[in-house]
């Protein structure tokens, strides 16, 4: 406890700086593959160059900030709800990708998010989520004629 917490090096801040640097490199590499069609100007390359240079400078700025410990204080983090919500989203994505429609996935997402916010009635929430999914399907799909990914359940309507 001898060092003040404000002046401690911040590992997360350094990671942010490195990510920005990597993004700058990616934009630059992508830019080199572009062709210039007009002889007068840099065309499609102008903006990537600006962005890449800007990101490099900002990576340096963020890096200096991290070394000086300038990042604002952070609260403790509860990982469980994050995993629950991302898990629900992943389930929805996978179900749509394999042609399972969106209704089952939507019900799962509703239930996992509820659980992430502290509800302990997974099956009830699954049911509520399913009802909402049917409602959305009728509203979006039938009334507003938007196309939603259909699976076995959706074809019943």
């Amino acid at each position, binding site marked *: 406890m001898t060092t003040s917490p404000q002046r401690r090096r911040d590992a997360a801040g350094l990671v942010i700086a490195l990510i920005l640097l990597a993004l700058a490199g990616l934009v630059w590499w992508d830019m080199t593959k572009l062709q210039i069609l007009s002889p007068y100007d840099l065309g499609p390359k102008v*903006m990537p160059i600006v*962005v890449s240079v800007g990101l490099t400078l900002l990576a340096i700025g963020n890096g200096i900030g991290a070394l000086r410990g300038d990042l604002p204080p952070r609260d403790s983090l509860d990982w469980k709800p994050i995993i629950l919500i991302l898990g629900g*989203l992943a389930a929805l994505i996978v179900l749509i990708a394999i042609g399972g429609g969106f209704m089952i996935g939507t019900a799962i997402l509703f239930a996992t998010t509820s659980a992430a916010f502290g509800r302990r009635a997974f099956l009830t929430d699954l049911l509520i989520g399913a009802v909402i999914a049917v409602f959305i399907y009728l509203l979006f799909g039938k009334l507003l004629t938007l196309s939603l990914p259909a699976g076995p359940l959706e074809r019943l309507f």
Partner: protein
Amino acid sequence: MEAFTSLASGLAVAIQPMNLLFALIGVLLGTAVGVLPGIGPALTVALLLPITFKLDPAGSIIMFAGIYYGGMYGGSTTAILINTPGESASMATALEGNLMAKAGRGGPALATSAIGSFVAGTIATLGLTLLAPYLVEIAVSFGPEDYFALMCVAFVTVSATFGDSPVRGLTSLFIGLLLGLVGIDILSGQSRLSFGIPELYDNIEVTTLAVGLFAVGEALYVASRRHIHEEKLEPVRGSLWMTKEDWKRSWKPWLRGTLYGFPIGALPAGGAEIPTFLSYATEKRLTKYPEDFGRGAIEGVAGPEAANNASAAGTLVPLLTLGLPTSATAAMMLAGFQQYGLNPGPLLFAEQPALVWGLIASLFIANAMLLVLNLPLVGLWVKLLAIPQPWLYAGILVFATMGTIAANPSPVELVMLTVFGVLGFLMRRFDFPIAPVVVGLILGPIAESQLRRALSISLGDPMVLLQSPISATLLGIAVIALILPFFLKGLGRFKAVED
């Protein structure tokens, strides 16, 4: 008084029954999302974009504006009754408003904020009516280099000048600019940063980005720190009505708040936080009852609420006349115009006067609707706060994902939504502002095309940016606005957060 003739013709558009209905839906939705914590007007417009795609443009844009105004009214209710502002523009209101509610004067606090919002909204919309034709006249003479310079000013002020940290603000902006590069470059037909993924060739959807950052990011953030943070709803006790004394103490703060809100909102300075906090500080200094501040002073509610609504109207000035969004909500409204192939700016006033003036006229109507909806019905809006938090956020995420795949039925779009959600979560956790990302994505490609147009006219000579006096002045302002915050740390008090 050319403006009033135009306004009169706009009124004829606005009072068509369908447009009145759209305005009503807009203000109802806006108030509801303003009241609910976790969703703001920017997210609501983002969620509605894909759904309104097939509706009449004038109607949907009137609805979006209603949402914007309604969100400003609704946010104050949450700020007063639970100390968590529904949106950041209400942070100043929460300071005294919540204390008034705790002291049993929640009713008058809600009343002064609703009436103050109406007064300020009406005056500021009048300001928009009078100012717009002049700005349009000036904007017509703008060349591409001038537009580019103007956008540079907006980029800097939105991200760096008024944030907590200019470095973090600019980082957010450049992430937005990077995302704006993705896809096929219209002028040369080459793809950038697409990596052979077909969904990326079509550019990154503003909707997907905004919904990911605001809905998914916010849900992840709130859930991850639920164990620390708890909210308490203050019941509305006693009379709703303001006493004679309350009126006497409110009317001057309303007018002063409007004077702060409208011009600052109209400048590309981003967000309503600055005028609301300026108004709060002014009222605290000018009040005849300094002992009330810290115990629930009505001036401290009346001023910031007026400032907040006036700045919403002010934001529409650069949006409509120059096509320049200066807040996340304005950026989403610009996306709303774009989905119908409409580009706000001087040309829109010339080509679609019925639409533009119909929108402006409907703002007056929306404001009046909001006064009626908010004063007697406040009890109803408070009931919205009783929705259990788990269902609220679960519902938000379900609508967020459905809105996204309704716009682009592809699992890749949902993966992008999730990635942007994680990005939004990390940005909140490490205190990077969100609005500059959205502004960067939507304004970046426009700025790029203006720059390239300017450069191709000048045959590649970048000095064209400094040869036009307008452009040179604007670039000078941008440079000053960029350097200033590094020397004046005090500006960071006006933190620009928006959801």
